[in-house]
């Protein structure tokens, strides 16, 4: 059987390649500046020309880069921006309150439809893997968001990698919290930074992760205020518990905005602890630039974590966009470039 031959063609030509399975990419410029042929087999890049099934794609005049991943999205909230007042100027607490006013009217079909529309935007921009957090709402069926996104994950398998991380607030009863993790989620999440007792919230998330052998990804320290003692930082609590338990699975702290407010002499011991615990950090600049620093009259804090010192300390760092046109970021966009510009 003849091998199908395709050409990418000119940048302003007709888009025609979606769905084409490749066995080679010909004449493409690599990140090191050289022009080469790449093979593809079983979903992986191979040395030399591909010989298996699939089409040959002439990519002369094009440059190849790794695809991006979105390590932190909220697909259940995505694209609800038009349903709320975009001029409200939300901080984190106000955004949550605004989200809760529309949550009762949101069902599983609504979540699925908006999530898919959002995934289409992410994919077109060059993002092939997305971790989405998903609320466990207390009014109505608490599992509707999880069920919709787990079903979407299966529907998209082989095209886009979706990871579903349960995000139950501290007001979710223990029984519901424990039941949510049995609905097929990939990751245990939580938001200790909003809980009256952060220690208890970290503890129940890690208990659940330990019992089910799942990775952990907590919203942590999503505030700029550091008047509290350092031992009360979410990321310190998390690192200490991870070390005490000897937790082998991957643990991630998302946001970590407070680390950006710490002077070096306070930051360095915290980062030492994070490094020892092997915790990865996800920074989400766009949303945190929107949410944080609203009570300042001048020289507003920027809502960014300490990315430079995190990298210099050898701690794993991922960057994402977080919210996509919802109460937490009415103008969010899944653009690789925007995220790069700001990360």
């Amino acid at each position, binding site marked *: 059987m003849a091998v199908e031959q395709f050409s990418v063609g000119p940048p302003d030509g007709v888009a025609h390649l979606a769905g084409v399975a490749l066995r080679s990419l010909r004449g493409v410029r690599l990140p090191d500046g050289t022009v080469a042929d790449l093979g593809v087999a079983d979903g992986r890049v191979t040395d030399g020309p591909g010989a298996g099934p699939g089409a040959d794609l002439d990519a002369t005049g*094009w440059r190849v880069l790794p695809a991006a991943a979105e390590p932190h999205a909220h697909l259940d909230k995505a694209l609800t921006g038009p349903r709320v007042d975009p001029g409200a100027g939300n901080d984190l607490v106000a955004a949550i309150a605004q989200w809760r006013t529309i949550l009762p009217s949101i069902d599983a079909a609504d979540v699925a439809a908006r999530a898919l529309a959002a995934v289409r935007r992410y994919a077109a921009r060059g993002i092939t893997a997305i971790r989405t957090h998903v609320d466990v709402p207390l009014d109505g069926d608490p599992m509707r968001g999880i069920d919709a996104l787990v079903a979407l994950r299966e529907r998209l398998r082989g095209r886009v990698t979706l990871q579903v991380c349960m995000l139950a607030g501290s007001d979710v009863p223990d029984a519901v919290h424990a039941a949510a993790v049995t609905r097929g989620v990939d990751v245990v999440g939580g938001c200790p930074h909003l809980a009256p007792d952060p220690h208890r919230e970290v503890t129940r998330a890690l208990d659940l992760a330990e019992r089910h052998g799942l990775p952990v990804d907590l919203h942590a320290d999503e505030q700029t205020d550091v008047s509290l003692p350092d031992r009360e930082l979410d990321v310190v609590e998390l690192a200490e518990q991870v070390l005490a338990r000897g937790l082998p699975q991957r643990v991630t702290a998302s946001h970590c905005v407070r680390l950006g407010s710490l002077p070096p002499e306070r930051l360095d011991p915290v980062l030492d602890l994070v490094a020892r615990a092997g915790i990865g950090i996800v920074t989400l600049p766009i949303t945190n630039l929107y949410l944080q620093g609203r009570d300042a009259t001048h020289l507003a804090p920027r809502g960014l974590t300490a990315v430079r010192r995190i990298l210099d300390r050898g701690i*794993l760092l991922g960057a994402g966009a977080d919210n996509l046109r919802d109460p937490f970021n009415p103008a969010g966009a899944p653009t690789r470039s925007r995220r790069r510009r700001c990360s």
Partner: protein
Amino acid sequence: MTAGHLRPAEALAAVTTGAREVLGLPPAGPVPGHVADLVLVPDSGDLGDVLAGAEDARVVVAGGRVLADTRVARSLDLPTGVDLPSPVLTRTVIPTAP
């Protein structure tokens, strides 16, 4: 890059290799053995153009299969090159009064 003051390669890593590792996914990119999750952009300009999001077209590959192909058709009432006399040159040809 702009907000976090990272170098371009660090900013790129944070949304590619770093993000995938946080997710516990194997590395992806145009390297033998890596997952064939790739992005093709027009090979004009430098990498800075890509980082600045200046490119209009991109082809996205996931697991060796084209996931998305985006092109932009544009009509622009502006010249592609500077073909007008510059103000400085114009001034030099204005005849002076006798």
